[in-house]
């Protein structure tokens, strides 16, 4: 007999949730939220066909379904595996998953330059977050990394192929959002690279969305490159009356003072572009690159940031203070001025205590 609701039950890390048939494990896990949700580097719910490639979202299926409770023999990509009624999934409770995931992180970072200090994506980089959460501190790779030259694809976007993790998201954007595809993947294996057709520039009103979907710093906004650090800027939600067909006109402005440093689409807690009235909120290049005056926008208010990356510095909704104090970590020793070199060296020991000098210390304060 048919039940009234055709929802199906799936248990992820001992939490049971009811979802519609056809939902993937990852989507079900996102409904639960928190630690239970596997990380996703290539999956993007708004891009058809994405996912399955990066293998960071691997989970263990301990029971296939209520009808067939056998476990699946291999770890499965949760972003592309549909749930079955009575399925039991193990993510953080699995013994195999953390090891496999650490392996994937190591593989992804193998050829990654780790140039975060000079990368514009730092602070809002999914790979950075993934590395912190699931990676190991060191690498066992001791060979030279693959390198490419930086190239400009179009007037607004720079491709830094060294940083690319080949998630294919940008090629799906080129396929599905822009009207002429001239962007894809050439070559194969570890020398594969995303590229435009021969030297054809990406010239399309919506090409800028590639930057938003890029999980790493491979595709960067040329109007924002090296202008500022994302954690110094203050995001505000804003909208404008955009005349470009297909553009939602709703964006996030990244301000410092009154200056708009960059404009991006509005993103949700998974780092994906938000939907408005059932339509994905892609923005056009006019909004993104050419509307950098606050007078062009109607500002709605400060953007709510719930992601745990550096981007959310001082902007957390709920802030968890660290439990350990310096005193506790130092086994009862009170904290003192770390830079007071005189207490340890004895060289140039001044006659008076440094705290008594009400100006910058001068050589005349020290013994000759």
């Amino acid at each position, binding site marked *: 007999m048919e039940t009234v609701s055709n929802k199906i039950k799936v248990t992820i890390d001992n939490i049971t949730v009811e979802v519609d048939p056809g939902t993937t494990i990852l989507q079900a896990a996102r409904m639960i939220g928190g630690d239970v949700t596997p990380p996703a580097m290539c999956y993007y719910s708004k891009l058809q066909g994405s996912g399955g490639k990066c293998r960071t979202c691997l989970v263990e299926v301990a029971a296939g379904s209520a009808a067939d409770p056998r476990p699946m023999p*291999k770890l499965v990509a949760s972003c592309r595996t549909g749930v079955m009624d009575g399925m039991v999934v193990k993510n953080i409770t699995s013994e195999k998953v953390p*090891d496999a995931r650490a392996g*994937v992180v190591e*593989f992804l970072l193998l050829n990654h330059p780790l140039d975060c200090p000079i990368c514009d994506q730092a602070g809002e980089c999914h790979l950075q977050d993934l590395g912190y959460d699931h990676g190991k501190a060191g690498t066992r790779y001791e060979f030279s990394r693959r390198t490419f030259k930086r190239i400009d694809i179009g007037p607004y976007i720079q491709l830094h192929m060294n940083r690319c993790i080949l998630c294919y998201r940008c090629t799906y954007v080129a396929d599905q959002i822009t009207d002429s595809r001239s962007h894809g*993947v050439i070559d*194969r*294996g570890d020398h*594969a690279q995303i590229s435009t057709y021969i030297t054809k520039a990406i010239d399309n009103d919506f090409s800028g969305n590639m930057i938003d979907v890029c999980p790493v710093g491979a595709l960067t906004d040329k109007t924002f490159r090296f202008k500022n650090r994302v954690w110094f800027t203050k995001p505000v939600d804003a909208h404008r009356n955009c005349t470009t067909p297909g553009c939602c006109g709703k964006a996030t402005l990244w301000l410092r003072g009154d200056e708009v440093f960059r404009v991006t689409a509005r993103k949700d807690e998974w780092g994906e572009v938000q939907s408005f009235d059932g339509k994905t909120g892609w923005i056009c290049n006019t909004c993104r690159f050419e509307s950098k005056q606050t007078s062009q926008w109607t500002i709605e208010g400060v953007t709510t940031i719930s992601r745990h990356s550096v981007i959310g510095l001082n902007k957390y909704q709920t802030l968890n203070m660290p439990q350990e104090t310096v005193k506790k970590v130092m086994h009862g020793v009170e904290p003192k001025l770390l830079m007071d070199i005189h207490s340890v060296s004895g060289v140039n020991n001044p006659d008076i205590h440094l705290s008594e000098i009400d100006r910058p210390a001068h050589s005349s304060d020290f013994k000759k």
Partner: protein
Amino acid sequence: MSKKLLLNKAHVEGIRHFDVYRREGGYASIEKALKMQPADIVEEVKKSGLRGRGGAGFPTGMKWSFLAKPEGVPRYLVVNADESEPGTFKDRYLMEFIPHLLIEGMIVASFALGSNNSYIYIRGEYDWVADILEEAIKEAHQNGWLGKNIQGSGFDCNIFVQRGAGAYICGEETALLESLEGKRGNPRIKPPFPAVKGLWGCPTVVNNVETIAAVVPIINEGGDEYAKIGIGRSTGTKLISACGNINKPGVYEIDMTISVEEFIFSDEYCGGIPNGKRLKACIPGGSSVPIVPANLLLTTAKGEKRLMNYESLSDGGFATGTMMGSGGFIVLDEDQCIVKHTYTLARFYRHESCGQCSPCREGTGWMEKILQKIETGKGEMKDIDLLWDIQRRIEGNTICPLGDAAAWPVAAAIRHFRDEFEWHVKNPEKCLTQNYGLANYADPIQVAG
């Protein structure tokens, strides 16, 4: 002399042409099949116990019965002739010498599956073979065995030959379909399986050349008769392409009852190891199956004689066994260096990885670099453990079996030949000029003889 079903007419003069092939009894299976119900043909193939000859050994009849049959949607048969596994060249031989056998099998299979347009996806390097196939298809058309209303049965069938561009990955069935559709040959994420959503989103069966050719004797002699040949679940005959350090390399059709020892040392088959050398190791099923040392090749861990069939070769799992695979039988004598051999294979898989999913893309390159390091005398002991760790994290975590295929040879080489790797590390200069030799893998036969 074992019974031959596929290659028994291969040496008849002019068998490549329709007239001779027909005179020798060719195309009879189509006459018989067209009078049967398609479901009965599938049933006959099921009864025969035929297993896929491409490498995985999945029962063909079962695969055919999984084919979805929605109304108003075309179905396709695609023959996988992208034979790129190093050491495997059986399909080339078959297509080159008796192309009509494949065409005949395809027409029967197309009728059974209801495919009006069937495809042969052939690797680009087999350029001349593709020409031979196209010639054969033309002849079949001229004689009324292809095209509209075949032999007055009302069944229409066309066969098209599509040349690949020379990528190993396009032998993976979903990558093959992508490539056939004109896209980049990246494997698809399964499910959906091709039997539900294959070529152009329609139900599709992808079969190996030899599998389809084997349908001809199954229909001619009946599934039950076919099942009597062979042993256990390894029914029928299998083409083995033997190469490496043997006296008589080539393609042999065997029934799967003979022992590995007989296959290597008897004059009917490989004819032993040349120059009085001794057997060191063997890869019995194409480069991606685990390599096994001589002692485990000739006898199983239980001490029984190992036979040339699916079950016996995989006896003992990967710990002591290997796999039948595609039948690319590579023999290594005592002069071969396992480290160099593994490095060569790792280089191949690194080159052929499609780069879609991260463990395979990055891991294959990493393994190649470490193996090169060990092979050139710069290796360290920790590298061997590192290799093991890398292959463990690739295996099973990728979209398609190429990741597994890249991991298994490395895993097997370390599992069985670890002391040879360690010898390379300990003797960085010696390993450049000398080989490790046999050590304790000496084959029992030659030692006794």
